């Protein structure tokens, strides 16, 4: 049945029951569904419609609030146990005695009312106010309420006459009158705002006791305009920046650990708000000032330094830095500098959280910025980065290894040397490359990867040794080619190794190559083995007259396989 049309027929009481029922349903849907959800909207619209219809018919709906009931026209129309989460108790808890809805109520008023009710449904441990303060702030034009004095408990017994006014003249006559006064003693409160040294005698009482010209206190048009502007600004102002300045100024003066804890706890919350507001400069300032305060508290007996360290650890954790995720995606690449500046104020402990900020949606410049930040932070202390290496998945790990490779220090070498044994081929490759970048002599440490299962890793090593003519590399390759390792059964790999020998080797390798050409098996009559092909290519790469001579000799070989391979090598 359509309740809206039924309202006039059911009578006022019944209609009131319907309104309250819909109000409760609406508030429940507020708890169940997120903002914008269709069911929540429907419940709100139904609630408004019924209330509006009721008020059009009856002009007002006044409810008396009991702790477990709502009373309308002297009759209970809704009851529920007096506990949190029940409508009468929520009103009662905050001292609302009567609640009145008046004709003319607007949809947006009902919506606001439900928002406030939802916000204050359960009283939190840290209430800044309650439903009453929220209703007062909102000033809903058609929802009136009366608040019970019960909220205050027993009123203070004090009365105005109990306030002491100080000494009275014994005879009840006047001790002094302003016009008679020519001497006033020290006014510490006036001095409070000064240098603390002056007394009122310095002010010259004769001058200041003269009356104020009434015209002088009239505002000029310019003053009036400024005053108006101030009030408008005050209405719109976000106090966050001013508050931050006050807290940071206070940091200069605070002394004991408890004070430090209180301030830093607030600054942590503020830091999160600054991130949400994308106010990177202020966030950087906050970190800078806290850091400087930490430097002022270096006494080991003072726990403040521990508190400061805990603060930096907290703000470097994922719950705080995750607030940057959206901002990093949305910030244009040209505006990344302030973010970078702020991030560089974080300790190396921030690296794990910073690494989590690499999301697929980040553009290249933002990735580069984050990489640069991590690199700098890790250069201060590699510990957090190193500890991440154990349990980070492959793509992110590769980035970390790449960053690690750019850092200095023997510790890094040790970490990288460990990583060349990592199960992930990409990580092994990245670590080996990093080691080689750091010092070409590290080839000794990574050369064993020439036999790696992964082709990309092998190619890295071969590529590196192919770059220089170097007897050390040459010896390593010769030794490797003579080792008959299982990987050398792979013809492509074998040929690549010979080629590399050709690029890094010298005449010292010729006897080894010549021996290969001269030692054929019966199978070599019909096909070219990998070793022969490799030896020929190596000779060609060595390129010395002796090597050329051996190559030409091979082109004239009686063995068709060698002859053909040598000709091909010469052609290439």
């Amino acid at each position, binding site marked *: 049945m359509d309740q809206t049309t039924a309202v006039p027929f059911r009578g006022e009481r019944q209609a009131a029951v319907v309104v309250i029922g819909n109000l409760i349903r609406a508030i429940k849907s507020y708890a169940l569904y997120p903002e914008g959800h269709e069911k929540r909207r429907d419940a709100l619209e139904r609630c408004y419609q019924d209330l509006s219809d009721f008020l059009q018919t009856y002009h007002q709906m006044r409810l008396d609030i009991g702790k477990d009931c709502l009373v309308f026209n002297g009759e209970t129309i809704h009851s529920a146990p007096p506990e949190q989460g029940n409508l009468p108790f929520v009103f009662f808890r905050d001292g609302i005695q009567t609640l009145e809805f008046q004709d003319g109520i607007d949809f947006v008023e009902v919506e606001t009312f439900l928002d406030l009710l939802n916000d204050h449904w359960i009283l939190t441990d840290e209430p800044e106010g309650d439903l009453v303060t929220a209703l007062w702030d909102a000033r809903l034009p058609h929802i009136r309420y009366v608040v019970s004095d019960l909220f205050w408990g027993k009123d203070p017994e004090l009365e105005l006459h109990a306030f002491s006014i100080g000494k009275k003249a014994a005879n009840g006559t006047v001790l002094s009158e302003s016009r008679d006064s020519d001497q006033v003693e020290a006014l510490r409160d006036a001095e409070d705002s000064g240098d603390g040294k002056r007394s009122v005698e310095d002010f010259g009482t004769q001058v200041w006791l003269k009356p104020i010209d009434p015209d002088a206190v*009239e505002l000029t048009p310019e003053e009036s305009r400024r005053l108006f502007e101030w*009030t408008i600004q005050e209405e719109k102002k976000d106090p966050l920046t001013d508050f931050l300045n006050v807290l940071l100024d206070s940091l200069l003066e605070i002394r004991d650990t408890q004070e430090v804890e209180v301030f830093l706890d607030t600054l942590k919350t503020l830091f999160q708000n600054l991130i949400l507001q994308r106010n990177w400069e202020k966030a950087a300032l906050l970190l800078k000032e806290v850091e400087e305060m930490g430097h002022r508290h270096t006494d080991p007996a003072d726990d403040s330094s521990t508190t400061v360290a805990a603060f930096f650890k907290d703000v470097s954790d994922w719950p705080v830095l995750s607030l940057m995720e959206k901002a990093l995606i949305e910030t244009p690449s040209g505006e990344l500098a302030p973010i970078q500046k702020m991030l560089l104020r974080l300790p190396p402990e921030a690296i794990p959280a910073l690494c989590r900020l690499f999301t697929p949606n980040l553009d290249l410049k933002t990735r580069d910025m984050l990489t640069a930040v991590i690199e700098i932070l890790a250069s201060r202390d590699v510990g957090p980065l190193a500890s991440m290496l154990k349990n980070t998945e492959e793509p992110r790990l590769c980035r970390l290894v790449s960053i690690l490779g750019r850092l200095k220090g023997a510790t890094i070498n040790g970490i990288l040397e460990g990583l060349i044994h990592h199960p992930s081929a990409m990580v092994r490759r990245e670590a080996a490359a990093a080691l080689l970048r750091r010092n070409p002599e590290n080839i000794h440490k990574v050369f064993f990867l020439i036999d790696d299962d992964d082709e990309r890793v092998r190619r890295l090593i071969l590529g590196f040794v192919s770059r220089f003519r170097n007897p050390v590399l040459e010896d390593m390759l010769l030794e490797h080619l003579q080792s008959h390792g299982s990987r050398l059964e792979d013809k492509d790999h074998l040929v690549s190794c010979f080629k590399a020998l050709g690029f890094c080797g010298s005449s010292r390798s010729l006897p080894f190559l010549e021996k290969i050409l001269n030692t054929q098996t019966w199978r070599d009559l019909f096909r070219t083995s990998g070793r022969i092909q490799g030896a020929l290519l190596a000779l060609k790469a060595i390129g010395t007259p002796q090597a050329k001579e051996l190559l030409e000799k091979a082109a004239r070989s009686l063995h068709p396989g060698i002859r053909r391979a040598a000709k091909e090598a010469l052609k290439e």
Partner: protein
Amino acid sequence: METGLHGEEVVRAFYRMIHTIGMYQDNNTLVHDAVSKFMASARRLVKDGDLEILIWRGRIFFQGERLPYRRETFALAGAWLDFFQKRRLAGIRFHSHVEHAHASEFVFLARLLNGSLNQENPAEWLDDQLLARGIHWVEPIREIEEPLPDEDPGAHFDDPSRVLERRKKARQSYLRGVDAVKTVSRKISVHSPAGIRKIRRLAQNMVELVLEDESLMHCLASIRDYDDYTYTHSINVALLSMCMGRRIGLSHVLLEQLGVCGMLHDLGKVEISRDILHKPGRLAPEEWEVMERHPLNGVMHILRLNAPAEMKSRIALGPFEHHLKVDLTGYPKTRLTRDITLFGRILSIVDTYDALTSHRAYRARTLLPNEALSLMWHRLYRQFDPILLKVFVHMMGPFPAGSVVRLNTGALGVVMGPDPGSETAGTRVLLLEKDDGNGFRKGEILNLTKPNAETETTGQWILSCLSPSAVGIQPAQFLLQ
């Protein structure tokens, strides 16, 4: 939507004009500004015919169209509905020839509307007054509906029952305020968790009182307690700050925040020993150091309150800044704070005034209210914001409410401030009569249109101001009982 936005602008400008004129004299710049703004928006609209603001079934209609509500305009709509309902008016109509009206006529109209609150039949009275003045461009619309059953149409602003009720509420708020600040301070001093829920509610009650009867709040703020200065001082600062905030047009929400700031501004004195606070004479440098830390300690205590960070950020600034001079000297020392906030500047002025006019152990004599204003105006002005100092001195008047005064006739009295329901500016003085013992009882109330000798040539005027302790009375006790 177009009409809605225009309507909101006109209604806002009209309300602001009436509100401003209720507080200031005709020649005040704020009055001039408010009138100009309303005239400009009204003239723009009457080109198309009459301009009509109507209240019908609890809604505001502008040019026949219902004014849409937004969350930001609830307060304006509520205040406007209240304004008309209390006067039993259904609206107001400006005829097209309003564009030829003079600014002084708008001021006259606003004063009439403010004053109509005390009339038996406001609409009829308004008609008569406008007719007598020859103003035909405006027409009050009489109420066409029965008032709501709970409303008492006969209850005027200055009805004795309402006056008594207001005074009772004022006393109650003051005493609860003192109690609440004491409770918070006590909890803080023993490191127990303290919240601000009650303080917020009190501030809200005080805002209502300030909006309804500013003079009463001035009277209340004249309460002094020699023995327990800090708590009464905190409430006085809250009250006078809110009165000042009202003068400059702050919204009710900001007034509430300002009130909370006032109540908590000296929270940092909790841990200062009474030996220092009440030490007669000058403080030693190390004692000064302790004193100078109180704004900072105040911020720390506010941070420790059980309240969300956002709320704390709104109420910590004023207490931190209340001893900073406008040039940022004073204390605490600052590096990053570049400007003192509006709340800080207001608190600084009010705090100084209340301290100067309070009994302190280290001072042989307390300054009288007019002396304190003179000192602040002529000597201490450099430490205050000059514009706000003007507003404050203007608000307090030559003899602030609660001042004990001697008239030229020799009679003693207590200044009550201007009559809030009256359209004429004047200072009311409650005469004090000797009772059978050694004290005083309430006498007649005089309305001195010109309160001091320099402007008064006949009749009665205020000759001088006296110390309440010298007379042995708590002035507020006479004004608020």
